[in-house]
């Protein structure tokens, strides 16, 4: 219990130091995520060296918090620790209210537009529609991901800005694909062996 109290106190000090340093660079949510990632490593290793990012922010925060010589805690203690979460800001955030969503895939790419087949997720339809979509509708970052067969999500809706203003938006986002893992392939091999055994004499 003593250890728990000490850790909590250390965390609070640490989080204040880190968040003040991060403030200029990251949103509040990013800061909270960063802190939650960093603290367990600090407690385990007695140093935040592994969590240092390119800004050197963790080292600075550690020094300010007088935290660098803290003793590593036992595994058992780490498991039972439940770090307090910072309350999210009450300030308004940017929010998207989708009115219409499609999932689509690219069937043709031309110089100024692309052709996509779409299914209407809002209507829950399985029947495809086709649309010619200007490339201007896609962000530069997502445009780099476009390829024949690429799958994307298209949302039309309202966006409420930080100041409370409401505006119509159309957003196309290409979905990143996780690479096949050993587990994926092993599961595939097992299923395939069973099918071949049952179906191929």
């Amino acid at each position, binding site marked *: 219990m003593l250890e728990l109290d000490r850790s909590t106190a250390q965390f609070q000090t640490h989080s204040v130091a880190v968040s003040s340093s991060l403030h200029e660079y990251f949103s509040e949510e990013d800061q909270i995520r960063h802190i939650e990632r960093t603290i367990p490593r600090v407690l385990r290793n007695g140093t935040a060296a592994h969590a240092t990012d390119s800004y050197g922010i963790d080292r600075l925060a550690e020094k300010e918090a007088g935290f660098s010589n803290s003793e590593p805690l036992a595994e058992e203690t780490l498991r039972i620790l439940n770090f307090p979460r910072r309350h999210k800001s009450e300030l308004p955030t940017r929010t998207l209210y989708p*009115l*219409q969503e499609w*999932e*689509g*895939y690219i*069937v*043709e790419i*031309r110089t100024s537009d692309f*052709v996509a*087949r*779409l*299914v*209407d*997720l809002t*209507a829950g*339809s*399985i*029947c*495809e*529609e*086709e*649309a*010619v*979509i*200007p490339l201007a*509708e896609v962000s530069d970052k997502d445009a780099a*991901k*476009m*390829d*024949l*067969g*690429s*799958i*994307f999500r298209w949302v*039309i809706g309202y966006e409420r800005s930080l100041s409370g203003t409401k505006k*119509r938006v*159309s957003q196309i986002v*290409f*979905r*990143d*694909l*996780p*690479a*096949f*893992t050993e587990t*994926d*392939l092993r*599961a*595939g*091999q097992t*299923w*395939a*062996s*069973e*099918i*071949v055994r*049952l*179906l*191929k*004499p």
Partner: protein
Amino acid sequence: MTQVGGSPDGEEFEITLFGPGYGEGIVLHTGDGRWAIIDSCTNADGEPLAFRYLQSIGVDPTNEVDLIVATHWHDDHIRGMAALVRACKKATFCCASVLCDHEFLAITHALEKHHFSSIGSGVHEIHEVFSHLASKQPKPVFAIANRRILSKGACEIWSLSPRDSNFLSFLRSINQLLPSQGRSKRRIPSLSPNRISVVLWIKLADIIVLLGSDLEKPGWIEILQDTARPNGKASVFKVAHHGSQNAHEPRVWRQMLEDEPVAVVTPWRIGHRSLPSQQDVQRILSCTPNAYATTKLKSPPRSSRRRSNMIRRTLRESGIELRRISGPTGMIRIRWSLHSQDGWRIEKIGSACHLEDFVT
């Protein structure tokens, strides 16, 4: 569905080809109230067209279909295949042997389980079919060059392709398309040239039908060089790969088909690309005047789905128009009787037309 009349007599044969502009399917009456279905496409409600057609002429597909063939795994030939296989409980399923290859199955499973998309695909249909067949009788038959896959009464069905030698290159090509870290999620695109399509040679009493599937030229050359294929020339030809030049081999018309056979093209459109082109139409008509298309393939109609004013306004301002992927269903139906002197009867149903009237 358009009014299509009743089912054929027991001694009457029938072959009906569907092609709404994206997708194709074929039903075959092999005599005595027994049927086969080759490939699958769906209507606007996502139902397999072949199934709906058979029901509409008074046939019970659940009990009267003996064989279902998936000539290959491309979206436009396999939509609704899993539903068809589940519904036709008495039917034997047939596909190219390579689709039940261990490596290909492992890939389909991994894609299905961890790279889910709400959009259907050929990979999804194949995975569904084999998952279902694992616990079902009869077991599937696998098509390779020169294998008889059905023999019943006056009907024999043979597969003329693919050859074993094409399997390895197919698997290598698929392997290169597998997902890798950092790439956007994508569907496995169609491979070209298509050399693993199943071409069917069908003998119905004294009439031979050749169904070209999507086999491209290199595959046809292999069939022509094969001395073990069944003898005889076909009088009805489903033109390969939607009439495309890349599937045209003049020797097929000279060596495997009767003079001026009945030829049927199932048009295909995706984005700004469509088949057959005007040159393809002219070329096919120069081979036979008896050529038909299952649809005129005018620009597909606008989407009829109701959407709010706000959505319509956003689409209009972005210059985006949503269209259906295919037009109304068209079909070419050919029926002939064992004992009739009248020859066959060709019906153009729905948006089907003579190839001379085809509009790209």
